């Protein structure tokens, strides 16, 4: 039995046919669509390496079955930059040394984008750490990660205020 679904992936519509209902969104992205930016750490919801935005909210791609997502809008790390211009969160991670090996980084960045959109943490480091606690960094680059999220939050705030003015 095959299943067909349509996703809006990084702004573009994709028609997908699945031969197996057990395929997760993570495996769909990495193995079937060829977007390996989203990483697989634990494959069971614990590490956050697979974080993507699903209808604007952050979720673990390893915990969602692709077949259930017909009509959904998904943003992955590949969809953040605008051509050669990096997303402010990407810039901030580079400037603040928010990584070492980089394996957790796509998930950290997607999670940070989600957190900033939720507007719950502001630039308070304690609340940022709590809001980012679903993303584990084996290299323990947490200091830089927190600084990057703080800095990106400030810049994005300033940019929206600038736009409004």
């Amino acid at each position, binding site marked *: *039995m095959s*299943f067909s679904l349509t996703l809006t992936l990084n702004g573009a519509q994709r028609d997908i046919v699945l031969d197996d*209902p*057990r395929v*997760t969104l993570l495996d769909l992205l990495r193995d079937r669509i060829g977007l390996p930016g989203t990483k697989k750490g634990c*494959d*069971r*919801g*614990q590490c*956050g390496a697979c*974080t993507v935005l*699903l209808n604007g*909210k*952050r*979720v*673990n791609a*390893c*915990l*969602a*079955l692709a*077949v*259930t997502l017909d009509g959904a809008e998904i943003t992955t790390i590949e969809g953040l930059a605008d051509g050669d211009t990096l997303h402010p969160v990407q810039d901030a991670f580079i400037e603040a040394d928010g990584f070492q090996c980089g394996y957790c980084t796509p998930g950290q960045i997607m*999670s940070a984008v*989600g*957190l900033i959109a*939720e507007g719950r943490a502001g630039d308070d480091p304690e609340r940022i750490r*709590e*809001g980012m*606690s*679903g*993303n584990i960094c084996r290299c323990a680059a947490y200091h830089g990660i927190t600084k990057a999220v703080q800095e990106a939050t400030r810049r994005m705030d300033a940019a929206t205020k600038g736009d409004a003015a």
Partner: protein
Amino acid sequence: MRYHSPSTFEDAARIAAAAQGVTRFLAGGTDVLVQLRSGHVLPDDLIDLKKIPGTYDIAQTEDGGWRIGIAVPGAALGAHAGLCKDWPGVVEGMELVGSTQVQGRATLAGNLCNGSPAADSVPGLVAAGATVEITGPEGTRSLPVAEVPVGPGKTALTAGEVISAIVLPPRGDKAGDAYLRFIPRTEMDIAVVGAAVSLRLDGDTIAEARVALGAVAPTVLLVAEAAEAIVGTTLDDSAMDALAAAASAACNPIDDKRGTAAFRIEVAGVMAKRAARIAYDRAKGASA
């Protein structure tokens, strides 16, 4: 694995009743997917409930209670002002489940039906006196949340039965609830002990109370003796001591890597006291 996405609970119940092998309902999938990927539970039939209309709704009932759809994720509970005002303890229990990413998917019904003795949203629901609406092959029925878990991983639902809504009673005046858990970390861990208290005041005196404990027995416990220890008091020190003693006495925990039985028994008393204090303060705040 056969994947089904029925558009009514009656159809979901029919598919489940007719299924022969391992059957799972799919809400947020944060337990089902982990079990599937680890090879623990490989369903023959997976019945996705999220396509059923209304499952993402939170609605006030005619009597002033709340009806929560079974696909409503934890994050949506936390974002609902009315629910947070009436039942902060229920909401904070669900908000402890996993990370924000998990919160975007995980549901109350899934937490309840997964049947973990340490499920974080269940003590709050039990203390609140919540009920579930169940749709089955024989029609619908209602059951107190306290009676849903019957053992680790086991529920009172019979083959073909599915929870179609979670119902919270009207909160009323001068009332408050709270849930606390003990974990060795600050985030992303399984409760070693959980305690929920819901109470109502008459002046400064507790007129009604319900106390529920998690992770200290094969199922979440509703501890009548602990509630009796504080009803009729102003939560003075001796009432607090009696509450802690009754909570500890009700425990029947296991020893495991997260905590010894003796530790859990002791901590259950402490958590019950702290949760009672928060619930009491919330009730006073609500009456001010």
